[in-house]
C-alpha cells in the first residue's frame, strides 16, 4: 500500500475512532479530480486504482457532483448506506460509505464500514419476515382469484338456469305449433284437401325456419362470454357507427342523425359493433312509423365513450324495461318483418355489455311522451388523432 498524503492529526484521530466504533472495512483516497489514488482494508478487490471514482468503486457511480460539493462544506460528509457489490466471483459485505473532503491534504477520503445495525440473526429474522409477507401477499391474491372464480361460477349457473328456462318454455311453444300444424296437414290430406295441406305446409316451413333461427341465435348468445379472444384495436367510433348504419335496411323516410363528438379509442371494436348494431337495428325495426327519426350522439368520457341512441318511436313501458333484455321476449309491437327477428337482439346487447365491463341504461316513459333513449358507457383508452394515448 502506498502511504497516503499527510493528514491533519485531528482528522486522523477522529476518523480512526469512527472506524473502530463502526466496523472498519476499508479506506479509499481520491485526488481532486475524483480519481482513486489509494486504497486500504479488506475491500481492495472491489476498488480499482487510477480510475475515476464512479468506475473504480461502483456504489459511487453518478455521485461525482455530490462528492465535489463537499469541498465547499468541509465539515459535511456524504453518505451512502446499505449497499452491496456483487460480481460473479464474490459479494462484498453490506456496506455504508462516508465521504469526507480533507482540506489539508486536498483529497477526498472515503471511509467504508460494514453495515452493523443488523447481526446475522437479525438479518435472517428480517429475511424470514419478508418471506412471510410475500407468502401472505400471494395468499391474498389467491383468495381474490378464488372469489373471482366463485362469482364467475355463480354467473354461469345463473345463465344455465336461464338457458334451461328458455329451452323449456320458449322453444316448447313453437315446437307445439309444429306438431299441431303436422296434425292439421294430416287431417287435410285425409280429407283429400290438398289446397289446405299445401297452405299449412307453407306455414310449417316458415315456422321451422323461425325455430331454426331461434336455435342459431341461442347458440350464438351462449357463446358470448369473458373467454372470448377478441382483442382491442384502435377504433374510429364515428366510422364504426356510419358503417353500421349503411349496412342496416330501413324505410325510405326513416332518418338517422349522428351528432356529438365520436372519439378515436383503443377498444374491443367487434363487441362495440354488436352492441351498437343491435340497438340501432332494434330502434328501426320496432318503430311504428316509416318516417321515424333516430338520433345517435356521443361524447368522450374519462374511461371511454358515452353513446346515446334516441328514437321517437312508441316507447317502452317501464314494466318491460327488464323483460326486453331476456332472450325471445318480444313486446306487443312486432317488427315489420318477423323473418329478421328472433327476439334475442337485446339479449346479445346485455350480455356483450356485461362481458366487456360497459353499462347500459334505458330511458322511456311512453305515458308521458314518445321515444326511447338507450345510454351506453363503453370502456376504452381514448387516443388523440395521431393514435397515441390521450392522458387525462
Amino acid at each position, binding site marked *: 500500500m502506498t502511504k497516503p498524503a499527510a493528514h491533519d492529526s485531528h482528522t486522523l484521530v477522529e476518523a480512526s475512532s469512527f472506524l473502530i466504533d463502526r466496523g472498519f472495512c476499508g479506506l479509499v483516497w481520491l485526488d481532486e479530480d475524483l480519481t482513486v489514488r489509494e486504497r486500504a482494508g479488506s475491500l481492495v478487490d472491489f476498488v480499482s486504482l487510477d*480510475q475515476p471514482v464512479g468506475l473504480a468503486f461502483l456504489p459511487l*457511480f453518478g455521485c461525482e457532483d455530490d462528492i465535489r460539493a463537499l469541498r465547499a462544506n468541509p465539515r459535511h460528509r456524504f453518505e451512502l448506506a446499505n*449497499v452491496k*457489490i456483487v*460480481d460473479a466471483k464474490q*459479494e462484498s459485505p*453490506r456496506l455504508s460509505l462516508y465521504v469526507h473532503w480533507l482540506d489539508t491534504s486536498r483529497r477526498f477520503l472515503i471511509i467504508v464500514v460494514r453495515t452493523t445495525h443488523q447481526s446475522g440473526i437479525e438479518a435472517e429474522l428480517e429475511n424470514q419476515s419478508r418471506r412471510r409477507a410475500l407468502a401472505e*401477499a400471494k395468499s391474498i391474491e389467491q383468495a381474490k382469484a378464488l372469489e373471482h372464480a366463485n362469482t364467475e361460477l355463480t354467473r354461469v349457473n345463473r345463465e344455465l338456469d336461464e338457458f334451461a328456462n328458455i329451452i323449456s318454455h320458449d322453444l316448447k311453444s313453437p315446437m307445439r305449433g309444429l306438431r299441431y300444424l303436422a296434425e292439421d296437414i294430416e287431417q287435410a290430406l285425409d280429407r283429400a284437401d290438398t289446397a289446405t295441406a299445401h297452405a299449412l305446409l307453407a306455414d310449417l316451413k316458415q315456422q321451422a325456419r323461425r325455430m331454426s333461427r331461434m336455435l342459431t341465435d341461442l347458440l350464438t348468445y351462449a357463446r358470448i362470454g369473458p373467454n372470448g379472444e377478441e382483442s382491442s384495436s384502435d377504433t374510429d367510433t364515428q366510422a364504426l357507427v356510419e358503417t353500421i348504419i349503411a349496412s342496416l335496411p330501413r324505410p325510405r323516410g326513416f332518418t338517422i342523425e349522428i351528432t356529438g363528438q365520436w372519439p378515436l379509442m383503443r377498444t374491443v371494436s367487434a363487441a362495440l359493433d354488436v352492441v351498437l348494431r343491435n340497438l340501432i337495428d332494434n330502434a328501426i325495426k320496432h318503430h311504428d312509423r316509416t318516417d321515424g327519426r333516430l338520433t345517435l350522439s356521443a361524447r368522450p368520457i374519462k374511461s371511454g365513450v358515452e353513446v346515446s341512441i334516441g328514437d321517437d318511436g312508441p316507447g317502452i313501458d317501464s314494466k318491460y324495461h327488464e323483460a326486453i333484455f331476456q332472450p325471445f321476449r318480444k313486446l306487443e309491437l312486432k317488427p315489420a318483418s318477423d323473418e329478421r327477428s328472433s327476439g334475442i337482439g337485446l339479449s346479445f346487447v346485455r350480455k356483450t355489455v356485461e362481458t366487456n365491463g360497459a353499462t347500459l341504461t334505458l330511458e322511456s316513459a311512453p305515458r308521458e311522451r314518445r321515444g326511447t333513449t338507450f345510454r351506453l358507457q363503453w370502456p376504452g*383508452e381514448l387516443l388523440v388523432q395521431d393514435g397515441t*394515448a390521450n392522458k387525462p
Partner: protein
Amino acid sequence: MSANLITKKVLMLGEIGVGKTSISRRLSFGHFGDNYKATIGVDIYSYDVKPDPEGIPFKFLVWDTDGSHGESIFRQYFARQAQAAMIVADITRPSTVESMLKLGRLYEDVMPGRYYAYILNKVDLEEDPAVSEIRQRLIATKIPVFQTSALSGENVAEAFHDAAVEIMKLER
C-alpha cells in the same frame, strides 16, 4: 477500460418477490438461483450489454433495490442518479402489475425524460387472468413491455439490449 465505453446506472424497481434479483443475477451471471432471499438495501451488479448496441461497448450498473421501499424508493438517495429504470411485476400476482404501473407513472414524474420499461416476469408460470385484462392498459401506455423469465432467461438480455439502444437514442 475502453475510452468509448458507455456506462449507465439502471434501477430495478418493483414489489417484493417479483424477481428483480433473479433477473439481475440471470443477466450478470447467466444463471437462476432458486433460493429466495429478500434484498435488504441495494445490491449492485454490472452487465456488459451484448451485442454492443450500435457497435459501441455499453455497460449497465444494475442497482437491484429493496422491494419494500415501494413508492418511497424515489426519496432514497441512490435513486437520484439513475439514468434508467426497469420496473418489474410478477404475472401470477395482479397487484404487482398495478404497483408496477404506479411506479412507472411516479418515475416519469420524478425523473422526466429518462428511459424506463415494464417487465412482466415469470412467464414460465401460468398468468393470472386479471393480469391479462391489465395487459390492454399496459399496451395503451406505449411504454416498452418485456415478458421475461429469469428462470429460463427468456427475453432478459433482450430487454436490457433494447434499453441500451433507446438510451443511446435519447442522448443523441
